[in-house]
């Protein structure tokens, strides 16, 4: 829950989600129709229902697609090359970085788990994935 930079204003909802993920309690939001989304949400982006419940993110997901980025934005200058993946957790997909792999060994279909890591460039929290 500690923020390395006390002057950084938090993004409510998003930073709360990162906190939860660091505690091993990542979640997604679900409406009664079964539509899923990520916070911050006041209502379901598909149907407008305000009856959203937090559901635990499944422990593992599968890499649905990935890329190894060699030309980053300045915020990831020292991290490149790094693998970005969209991981399918079943009810929801999440985008993040595959952090425990040689980027060249990442493949579609690999099973991974969520793990919040830190940018080598900025020390900001980054949604990460590790192999299981």
């Amino acid at each position, binding site marked *: 829950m500690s923020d390395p930079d006390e002057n950084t204003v938090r*993004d409510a909802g*998003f930073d709360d989600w990162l906190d939860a993920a660091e505690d091993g309690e990542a979640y997604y939001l679900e409406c009664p129709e079964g539509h899923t*989304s*990520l916070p911050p949400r006041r209502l379901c*982006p598909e149907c407008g229902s305000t009856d959203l419940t937090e559901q635990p993110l499944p422990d593992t997901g599968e890499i*649905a*697609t*990935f*890329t*190894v*980025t*060699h*030309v*980053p*934005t*300045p*915020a*990831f*200058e020292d*991290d490149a090359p*790094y693998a*970005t993946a*969209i991981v399918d957790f079943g009810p929801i*997909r*999440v*985008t*993040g*970085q595959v952090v425990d792999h040689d980027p060249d060994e990442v493949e*579609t279909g690999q099973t991974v788990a969520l793990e919040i890591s830190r*940018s080598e460039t900025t020390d*900001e929290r*980054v*949604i990460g994935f590790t192999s299981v």
Partner: protein
Amino acid sequence: MSGVRVAGTGLTPFGNVPERTSRDLFAEATQTAFDVSDVPRADVEAVFYGNFMGELAEHQGHQGPLMAEAAGVQAPATRYESACASSGMAIRDAVMRVRNGEHDVVLVGGAERMTNLGTAGATEALAIAADDLWEVRAGMTFPGAYALMAQAYFDEFGGSREDLANVAVKNHKNALTNEKAQYQKTISVEEALDAPTVSSPLGLYDSCPLSDGAAALILTSEEYADEHDLDAPVAITGTGQGGDRMALHDRDHLARSPAARDAGAEAYADAGVDASDVDLAEVHDCFTIAEVLAIEALDLAQIGEGISAARTGRTTADGDVPINLSGGLKAKGHPVGATGASQIAEVTKLLAGTHPNSEHVADATTGLAHNAGGTVASATVHVLEEVDP
């Protein structure tokens, strides 16, 4: 149906001119458009202007009035922002406003200054078209987003980097005669495959360049064009817009563009044509894979077959449906806010027979322009037709 006439078009050269302000670029494009149209500035009733990253590149908001002033037009002006589809959106609103009788003459266009930011700065600026919290903070770049789609496409339908290289080779070849294009040189498949990787599987030659430039259009009602005996032989007869979830990971398919499909379906129905009527198209090839996804979404290729269209010659200059005869974003350049309007300018000239590449499409009567924002969370499609061909 009665269309909105394209009375004049103007483009600056697209390229690397970091010192030029967007107001100067837009002024140049509008000067050309007014000169060729014979429409007096005093007749313009509204200005529709597209720009994406002016706040970041020039520390400039509130660009509508600024650009009307640059164009020497005393008319209310609005700036449109929808990432790379900014001027497509401006055109769509302008077309609807002329159609509903609100205006007879409008100035439409867009401009972007990008190269003054440098590669890292421009990469950062382009990334803001994605979801900042859930994509950009995970390290997703603009090329990275299209790379994710390219990998998903390869996994689902097959295809190779060589297929994509053929798209780049085709578009570079088309730009050879386009004096406004950023690159007027051919490339080979081998050169494209050997180029440095930007974001795998996409390399440097899969990506459009960073560009500065502007485009302007004078659009008029049919009545105004007839009354003033304008040389305006091409009409915008169909307009469509589509939208999608912002983040790529929230889409049903990672290798399809439903927003472009919806925009295309609406524009085809609006014009009373279908995909088989399209003789040529300018599509939004910010990356080679984007052209593949676009032609599939627009029904110009079957799902899963767009990848081979350039390699087999179907979309080359003398193929069934020539795609990006201007050189596309890939070779012509992609000054983001100018791109949608520049596509309309190119299609207009191709249909009017005044484009250097018109010889390849001598019998063409129907053209299409497809402009996409971000990973196609927004898209516009316009159908253009030759009047009384």
